[in-house]
């Protein structure tokens, strides 16, 4: 069963950017796309566990800060070497200007 966790306020995440969030010792990354939609994925790159929150969001792509591995953060799909394993994604909902992620 999905547990909804309040992660941050909508204004905490800039447009086309990413924010880190920790819950129960697990890292998550929360994204705001250019069309103002919010997404959440696992916090680490699947290649070498770098924190994605330090990476660059370009349109619907998050690029890992260490080796430039890229993922579609909406689907989690790895977009090419060195990122070959898809990212885990999490459902997101917004209520009263608060972003909740389902874990």
């Amino acid at each position, binding site marked *: 069963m999905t547990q909804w966790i309040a992660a*941050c306020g909508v204004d905490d995440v800039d447009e086309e950017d990413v924010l*880190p*969030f920790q819950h129960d010792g697990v890292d998550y990354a929360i994204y705001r796309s250019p069309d103002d939609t919010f997404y959440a994925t696992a916090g680490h790159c699947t*290649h070498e566990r770098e*924190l994605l929150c330090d*990476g*660059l969001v370009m349109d619907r792509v998050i690029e890992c800060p260490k080796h*430039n591995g*890229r993922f579609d953060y909406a689907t989690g799909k790895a977009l090419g*070497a060195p990122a070959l394993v898809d990212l885990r994604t999490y459902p997101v909902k917004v209520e009263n200007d608060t972003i909740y992620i389902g874990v």
Partner: protein
Amino acid sequence: MKELMRRSDGPATRDTVLWLGGMLVFGAFGVAFWGSWFAVPFFLAYGVLYGSASDSRWHECGHGTAFKTRWKNDVVYQIASFMMMRDPTTWRWSHTRHHTDTLIVGRDPEIVAMRPARLARILGNLFGLVDVPVALRLMVIHACGRLTAEEQTYVPESERRKVFTTARIWVGMYLATAAACVLTGSLLPVVLIGGPRIYGTFMHLIYGLTQHAGMGENVLDHRLNTRTVHMNRLNRFLYWNMNYHVEHHMFPMVPYYRLPELHEEIKHDLAPAYPGLWAAYKEIVPAVLRQLKDQTYYVRRGLPEGAAPLHPVSDGRAVLTERSAVA
């Protein structure tokens, strides 16, 4: 920092037009003067653009940071890989390892000057005398559907078919070049294709040795195992600003055309940059020679007083936890 990471297609498109356009012009003059000494300077320029400048194009487009548009990075990466005789897949993975384990002995596959340095190999590679035969041998091995034992440690299974396919295409291209030489009774085809990796490659080694040669191995702080060297505009064009190498290792997402700005932003946390190639080599040559006898010796860089300690890449924002998040 994120602002410095933003890409645009403009600078790399301009520089790629200059790079490939320069090769076209110099190559055309070289062909026109073929058979006379007037061809030499034109082929020298063509060769440096082919055999030296391709190295930095390979590097930047391998990171995917030169162009904003992904396919443009991929196209230039494939062209530059061919010219440098580096399989685009295995070298992408070896460079990934180089960034994870920079100068970590036994892990980094791209240590040029080991302790002790193999001087004959380094000097020979000013003219590709080791790199080219090794590359051709690997090309044949890959074309036969095999990887070396070391390559198997960093190239995932799912990527290996690409290695074999590329090698088969490249072997065909080099055989066609050799056949053209035989059929025309001239060396001109190989002077244009493949040959520049020998006669025009010296600058890529001269630039590349400044990155890490003589520096401390097995340290995690890139400020202590990497050099930033100031260079003139021509060298920075040929080298695509990789002279800002400390900055590149610390923040590999910053495109080459923003590295000078990044240098200005963080130089207070770095050891002083070297004022030029001469200054860098005044340190590198004695250090590498000394390491032939004393393998405990390495160049020790001092960080400025008050320099930030080594820490994970961060733009300074605090990590939100449940306690600080909106309830």
